[in-house]
């Protein structure tokens, strides 16, 4: 594996490809990489998933803790979503406190899931004002060949949809399946060689510009948007992306729902 060391050459190569409407790995502009989604693969997690998109591989694990509800919301539990990209996942990721990139990763995925309302926080209450479940979704990168955002989001919702509330271990009743009523799906677009493409690889990210993340819910409602990195885009470009995202999320939602 080699990352090009001359980003300027990479950029101009990507521009040349874009002129011919081609991509560095032969895909079409809106084409995603080969996808593999597995669930319930981590023995210590109450819910888990593994997503592989080309050479990008991530894990998601769900754990539960008992929390005291916040005084102003005595009937609600909580959802926390945290992303970690450790040096295992690529030569450019370094150890140390969470980087701005990994903080952004966690927050963007968190928002899409949270805002979709797919988890009913009222249902997480055990004893009002005293005990409630805190659901913790941890996203963990194994191999970063680009577009960790979509891989994390997909692994995250899959892990949640297959999670069991460990009530027995905490001595508060019988285990039951976590209720997840919706399937929010994120699609990410990167500007590469001047135009936006879907599901960029690490090299496209390295030689590209801004990215746009869209999370849509079951009914195509918008739950989360995020533009990342330096870059200027027009309203028309955004409309094209949104239209693609509507189409794409429907397909991915079917895959997750049918697991």
């Amino acid at each position: 594996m080699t990352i090009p060391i001359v980003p300027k050459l990479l950029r101009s190569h990507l521009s040349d490809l874009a002129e011919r409407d081609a991509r560095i790995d032969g895909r079409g502009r809106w084409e995603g990489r080969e996808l593999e989604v597995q669930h319930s693969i981590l023995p210590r997690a109450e819910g888990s998933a593994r997503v592989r998109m080309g050479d990008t591989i991530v894990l998601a694990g769900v754990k539960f803790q008992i929390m005291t509800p916040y005084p102003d919301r005595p009937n609600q539990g909580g959802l926390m979503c945290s992303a970690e990209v450790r040096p295992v996942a690529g030569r450019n990721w370094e150890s140390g406190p969470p980087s701005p990139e990994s903080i952004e990763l966690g927050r963007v995925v968190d928002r899409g899931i949270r805002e979709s309302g797919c988890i009913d926080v009222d249902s997480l209450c055990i004893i009002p004002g005293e005990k409630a479940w805190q659901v913790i979704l941890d996203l963990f990168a194994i191999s970063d060949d680009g577009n960790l955002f979509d891989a994390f989001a997909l692994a995250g919702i899959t892990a949640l949809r297959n999670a069991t509330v460990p009530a027995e271990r905490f001595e508060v009743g019988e285990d039951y399946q976590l209720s997840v009523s919706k399937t929010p799906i994120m699609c990410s677009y990167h500007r590469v060689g001047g135009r936006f493409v879907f599901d960029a690889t690490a090299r496209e990210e390295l030689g590209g510009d801004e990215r746009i993340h869209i999370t849509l819910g079951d009914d195509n409602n918008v739950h989360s948007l995020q533009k990342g990195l330096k870059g200027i885009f027009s309203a028309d470009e955004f409309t094209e992306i949104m239209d693609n995202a509507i189409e794409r999320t429907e397909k991915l939602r079917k895959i997750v729902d049918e697991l």
Partner: protein
Amino acid sequence: MIDENGVRADGRGPGDIRPITIETGVVPVADGSCRMTWGTNEAIVAVYGPMEAHPRKIQRQDRAVLDVAYNMAPFSTTDRMRPGFNRRSREVSKVTQDALESVVLLELYPRSKIRISIEIVSAEAGTRCVGLTAASVALADAGIPMTDLVVSVASGKINDVVVCDLNKEEDNYGEADLPMGIMPNSGELVFLQMDGDLSQDEFKQAWKYNMDAAQEIHKLMVEALNGGDSQ
């Protein structure tokens, strides 16, 4: 929060923004600065530079780097905000920096750094919009060349109605928040976030409110930079 005639609790119509004032030169020791009040938000922005970028490893051979820090003062919120590291501030700093790097002519100042400090000394709703807008005024006040100013404004939804520029009470019940960073001359975007629940139609309405408000705010920015009274 909003009556049958579309009038909001503070008297505004759905597309109206809160009162805004803009003042430059408010940090005498800085190279450029701006104080912006927007409702009961107040942001103070100082710009230092272009100056030598150090440590050297942050230098870029072919352009300047921006160093944007957004921060909320401890007394800016109802409950005191503890100073120090804060994930939200880190993230707002990053998206603000990304937006400003899109308009500043960085290649004019290779190997240098431009530091932009955004201090929210009073927070209502929409502080990231105030900070980004005020920062672009402070950059202009410092004489840093840009392709355009950036106007940032957010629309949202309350009681299933799409409205522009939520105030604090509205924000507490807000069902969605769509902040954008707009280049007022071309209508292009350098910043976009959204949280909540908006149908495709509601989304288009919120987008339109933001575009219209941006033109209005842009006038106030230009007045302030021309030395006029922005009130």
